[in-house]
């Protein structure tokens, strides 16, 4: 149980062309017991940050604190962290029992106590006590399914009794169906153990579903830090806006005119309280999620008027791509509202969910 603090954490990798900055003066506090997500596209520095917390990378400058201690120069084994790797890194020449017991074996814990701890950890992770798990503890990792391998890796991490868990892409090696199951399981496990947990993911849905707070990263910097709700509702900049959401947000370029926003030949009402603040003819980007549109076959005031280009079935809903005077606008409609191909529709963005960006940053 510990808080994690990084202070001006910088990591530069030497490279042929001078160097790559993976972490750029990152200052971040992760609270005790928090489930924290590092989210970003590949190469944004999220894995480097996780590995620096683990001690597998040494920062170029700055400091890492875990609990009360400055662990910047502490070797990985002495930080009280346990890490679960993307490929789980279960030792192939050891049985499940030996794998789970490994952290204790390294510390020289007596065999009998190791055995006890293994059984406890295995029971916590659902690796014993059911028909499908008979004899599982004596098997080698190669004889386990992907989901079981993940649980063994988690059991090994819990057996180490760490004050911090670090997960590197914990769900990416599972197939889609199993991933949802494992996600729920992981969230429950973290609640029960109440251990500070940091995990890395490139999947925004995973971060939204699991985390208490999310840090969205780009080029070694945090672009937004907040709860899943904050990050989803009010992305602080167009990068986060385009990254979060399973259907990408419409980001439409326009200009301010008479307190309204002129986008794709349509006049859209800006979010409340922004109209007066915006300079006339300022270039802005209007952000509206496809889910937050009122769509109608009849004319609506202040709406986009467009023709249906593409209709994609999402199961319970449909994702329509409208052609609005040459600009593509995506909206989601309920399954029973499927329009005719090339039908003309009016799409009105929900005013309380419309966002306005200037120079890439949120202004309202």
């Amino acid at each position, binding site marked *: 149980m510990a808080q994690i603090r990084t202070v001006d954490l910088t990591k530069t990798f030497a490279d042929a062309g001078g160097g790559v900055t993976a972490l750029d003066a990152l200052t971040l506090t992760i609270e005790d017991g928090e489930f924290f997500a590092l989210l970003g596209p590949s190469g944004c520095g999220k894995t480097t940050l996780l590995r620096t917390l683990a001690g597998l990378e040494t920062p170029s400058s700055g400091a890492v604190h875990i609990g009360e201690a400055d662990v910047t120069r502490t070797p*990985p084994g002495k930080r009280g962290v346990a890490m679960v*790797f993307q*490929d789980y890194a279960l030792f*192939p020449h050891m049985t499940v029992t030996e794998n789970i017991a490994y952290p204790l074996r*390294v510390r020289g814990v007596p065999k009998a106590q190791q055995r006890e701890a293994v059984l406890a950890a295995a029971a916590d992770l659902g690796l014993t006590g059911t028909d499908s798990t008979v004899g599982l503890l004596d098997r080698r990792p190669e004889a386990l399914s992907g989901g079981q391998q993940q649980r063994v890796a988690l059991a090994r991490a819990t057996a*180490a009794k760490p004050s911090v868990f670090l997960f590197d892409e914990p769900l990416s090696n599972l197939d889609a169906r199993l991933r949802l199951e494992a996600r729920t399981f992981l969230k429950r496990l973290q609640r029960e153990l109440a251990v500070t947990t940091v995990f890395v993911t490139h999947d925004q849905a995973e971060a939204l579903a699991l985390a208490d707070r999310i840090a969205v990263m780009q080029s070694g910097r945090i672009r937004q830090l907040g709860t899943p709700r904050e990050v989803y509702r009010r992305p602080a900049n167009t990068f986060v806006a385009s990254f979060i959401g399973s259907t990408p947000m419409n980001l439409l370029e326009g200009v301010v005119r008479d307190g309204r926003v002129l986008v794709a030949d349509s006049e859209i009402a800006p979010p409340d309280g922004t109209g007066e603040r915006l300079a006339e003819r300022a270039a802005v980007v209007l952000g509206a999620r496809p889910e937050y549109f009122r769509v109608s076959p009849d004319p609506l005031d202040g709406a986009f008027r467009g023709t249906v280009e593409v209709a994609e079935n999402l199961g319970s809903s449909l994702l329509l791509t409208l052609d609005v005077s040459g600009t593509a606008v995506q909206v989601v409609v309920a399954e029973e509202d499927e329009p005719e191909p090339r039908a003309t529709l009016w799409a009105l963005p929900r005013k309380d969910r419309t966002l306005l960006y200037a120079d890439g940053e949120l202004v309202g």
Partner: protein
Amino acid sequence: MKDPTVRAVLAKIGRYTFLSVLLGFFALPMLWLASTPFNAHPTLDVSISSFTLHNFSVLLKDPYALPSLWNSLLLAGGTALLTVGFAAAAAYALSRVRIPGRNGILYALLLLSSIVTGTAAMVPLFELAFKLHLIDSRVGVILVFTGGLLPAAIFILKDFTDNMPRSYEESARVFGASPFQIMRHIVLPMIRPGLATVTVWAVVNVWSNFLIPYILIRNPDKYPASVVLYTFYTEGGQPDLALISAFSLLYSIPVVLLYLFVSHRYGFRFHGGIKR
């Protein structure tokens, strides 16, 4: 009869004749090795005119024959141990530590060790051993062998360590394992097929080598089997086929046993590294 049938039959006859000759070429020396030691009047033919165990009882009375097998075992075992130990450590280090030009170093070593071999290398090696007071010493022979085998052994094992995902070691490190523990618990067990390969290869190399022990060892008590084999001559200067064949049979047994053991344990999976 139709033409294609005749051709097919002839082709079959031709193929089996060729296979028989090929088989004979390899099988006859083996048969000779299996039969001649038990022949009272050994010749270069494969035959047992009169069965006897006399050849072996003569061999047992020879003061150098059996001890030489023990000497061979010491040299081969010592060399295999040193080679595998150093090669594993070096291969692991070379595949994990970033040294500028590390591949260059390895290829240069490999090239040198395969060019400067045999007789050409013996003069400087002898001189080196002489200056280090390692003439007539088993340790000297083992060191010379180890030096010669190491580059290729490192090269083989590096393929295994290169293919090992780093996450295994990193995982162990995060759990607090020391570098020595990582080597012992993780790296060595995972490259075991490679270690077995190098062990067999080192043993076979030492077992069959004549020149190095012949030149570096003075005292006949310390001669390995490969050298003693060349001392079985009759008073007339003719090769003593009875002793040579009987000794050859004994000489080959340990290598066959080693092969069977390793093949049983590791199945000779020369695929290199770990498949995932």
